[in-house]
């Protein structure tokens, strides 16, 4: 039997390339590669503008700053990405982060254990547990994920404030290992009259980037997550165990929330139980700017990193540009609407040509 042209792609198919590499940096095709290029271009242009204003900006020190300020949220954003790949969404992550961080710190104090490893274990453990609960109830009652995690956000804050009676833990009462974690550097380089260093946060950041990439691209669960987001019914019929995926995906996002929580409190040396919550939308914005679709099946680690880099850059150069912070949200919003509009519009046009009317 010979092959028939009917099995050929409709047009020279874009988006060919080894799929694994594609997930980190997709080349064209379903639009995500285009999206990443667009994003990289915007970041470059922005860096040029800032450098024009302040020539010192183009330096290793700026990169170090970017890593220090952006790493915690990038980590949690990668967790959100993993959830979004399956077609879900999680908005309870920051409530989870502060809950985990508070319990970890309070427990360290109560037991008199001054060890970063202990605090990390507790925080990540609690974060994972909360994530697993999310995944479980979403699966059991087949609930819409946005609403469930939104409700969960309220429950977590309530648990923290009412049941645990959480009160801020200030620098003086923080285990010193945790206090130091936020300020430690891997190495230092001279900068101005002082010096600047590469924050230790670079280590968890790199680990999580690699781990997330590995999870999404090199494990059965990761591939099944893309499958689930791509065609939920089909995935179930192909024997994908949705419960298992939900648990792994929400558990992983929860674990990263715990890690992020601990990083954030150690960075500011204050465990404030009412902080963090409310910044979820910025993280979601980063993930979406990075090209993940809410309907699932798409999204890449590289996209999230770039998306978060752009948002961190936008808010961290306002003083340098002499702009009032009031305009910060405006720029993030404008970037988000523009990027989303361009990439979705192109995808829509492409699909209409293929007579696919799904995103009318």
């Amino acid at each position, binding site marked *: 039997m010979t092959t028939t042209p009917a099995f050929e*792609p409709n047009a020279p198919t874009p988006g060919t390339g080894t799929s694994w590499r594609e997930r980190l940096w997709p080349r064209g095709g379903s639009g995500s590669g285009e999206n990443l290029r667009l994003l990289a271009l915007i970041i470059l242009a922005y860096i040029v503008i800032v450098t024009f204003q302040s020539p010192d900006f183009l330096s290793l020190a700026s990169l170090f700053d970017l890593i220090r300020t952006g790493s915690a949220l990038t980590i949690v954003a990668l967790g959100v990405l993993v959830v979004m790949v399956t077609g879900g969404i999680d908005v309870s992550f920051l409530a989870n982060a502060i809950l985990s961080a508070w319990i970890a710190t309070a427990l360290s104090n109560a037991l008199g254990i001054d060890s970063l490893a202990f605090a990390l274990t507790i925080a990540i453990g609690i974060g994972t547990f909360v994530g697993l609960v999310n995944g479980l109830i979403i699966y059991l009652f087949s609930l819409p994920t946005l609403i469930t995690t939104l409700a969960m956000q309220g429950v977590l804050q309530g648990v923290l404030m009412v049941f645990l009676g959480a009160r801020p833990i200030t620098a003086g009462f923080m285990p010193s290992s945790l206090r130091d974690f936020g300020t430690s550097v891997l190495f230092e380089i001279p900068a101005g009259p002082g010096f600047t260093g590469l924050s230790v946060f670079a280590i968890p950041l790199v680990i999580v980037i690699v781990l997330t990439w590995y999870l999404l691209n090199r494990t059965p669960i990761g591939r099944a997550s893309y499958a689930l987001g791509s065609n939920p019914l089909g995935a179930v019929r192909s024997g994908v165990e949705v419960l298992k995926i939900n648990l792994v995906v929400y558990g992983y996002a929860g674990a990263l929330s715990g890690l992020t929580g601990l990083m954030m409190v150690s960075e500011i040396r204050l465990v404030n139980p009412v902080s963090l919550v409310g910044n979820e939308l910025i993280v979601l914005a980063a993930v979406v700017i990075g090209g993940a679709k809410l309907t699932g099946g798409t999204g890449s680690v590289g996209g999230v990193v770039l998306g978060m880099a752009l948002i961190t850059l936008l808010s961290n150069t306002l003083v340098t540009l002499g702009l009032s912070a009031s305009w910060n949200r405006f720029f993030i919003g404008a970037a988000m609407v523009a990027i989303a509009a361009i990439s979705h519009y192109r995808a829509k046009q492409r699909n209409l040509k293929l007579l696919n009317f799904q995103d009318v």
Partner: protein
Amino acid sequence: MAELIRLEGLSKRYIATQALDHVDLSIAAGEVLCIAGTNGSGKSTLMKCICGAEEPDSGNIVFDGHAYKRLSPSQAMRLGIQIIYQDLAIFPDLTVAENIAFHEIQHRKGLWLDWKACRKTAEDALASLGAKLPLDARLGDLSFGAKQTTAIARALTQECRLLIMDEPTSALPARDVEQLLTMVRRLKERGISVIFVSHKLDEVFEIADRIYVLRDGKEVGEYAPADIDVSELGFLMTGVRVVAGKSDEVKADAPVLLEVRDLQRDGQYRDLSFALRAGEVLGFAGLTGSGRTETALSLFGLNPAKSGRVLVDGAELRITSPQDAVRAGIVLVSEDRASQGLFGRKPIRMNIASSIYERIKGALSLISSDKEATIGDEWVTKVRVKTPSASEPVQSLSGGNQQKVVLAKWLATEPKILILDNPTAGIDVGSKAEIHEIVQTLAREGCGVIMISDDLDELAMSCSRVLVFRTGRIVEEFSGPEITSGRIAATIRQDD
């Protein structure tokens, strides 16, 4: 031959319908069993019970001598039962290779996915089917045939002892069907049993070792293909004798309803010129990709042509949206009724009335629910939709009845020009005849009908004129007695 699977007294009830009623059935290794039955007779439900997607209310599934009350999807898969659904469980965002090697990826051991091995698996699976596909293309960008080949190839990557195909051909054009049947024969040679469900009875006769007939969830009987013929099978399925009727001649002086001149859209079709008269059923024949659906969508305002003219009742029209088309009296019963034609969770009557809201709206654009109900009930009776009530959600209907709802929805608009894109794909012989009857009645009342179909017999029977499309052009026109499926087939395939 050794028995592979036996069903004993399988029953399944949905709220209002007894979908399966004590079904007994047995399949031997390497046997191709075709299941025939009208829409809603319970074929898909039976398949779902075997592969674990549905839980039977009572009865046993005996596989390899072990009896199971029910199977879970993964359990069924482990036993070697693979199913290819009508709507294919493929993943548009993954590549072809990943889709094919999906099970291998899911069950691999070790820490690192061996991408090369996966590609090899995919290549081998495709080769054993004699097919070739771009392994790294995103599957969502490929044609339906490619998706189906991918799905079959995937089923073969696992130990497969029973392959269930639920209406694999209803969305495939003739040439791909042949390829599919060849694949099935290869599987059979390898000792794999196949359950094949199809409404295209000629295929059933071509491929089946045994035909199992189901009616209203009950077994009618098992037959060897040699013992019965197509019309006998149709009778067994429906309980009535279906007599094919021929369309009427159209008077040459009937007014021209639609005239298309030099219509063109790059990459899809070009130089299209034809006319449609009142009372005429005009057939479009051709292969997939020959541009028929594209043309239909253009006339319906969803795929605007780049150049050319469309005249309705002699007046030139620019149709850029379905609203324009409906207003001009052009309606389209599209290929994919589930996703393009129906609001699954909404009541039948709302589905039917949805097309004429514009017309029945009163002051302030209000729509009286009484009017909606009256219209819905009226059409449910007229096209004889099988349902307990017109307020049932339309997704509870079987395929044929859903298609009737789509037809009713458009007939309610009293269209001047009705375009049907494969209107009877996946529809049983009984309903098919009813749909054909509706179409003929409509033509007799002065409506112009364009019928796109991959079923050449259907074209030959229903049409007074047939245009043959090849690579985006009209290459031939047949009319009256010239129209035979053989001649059309020959023209379609020229210089192939």
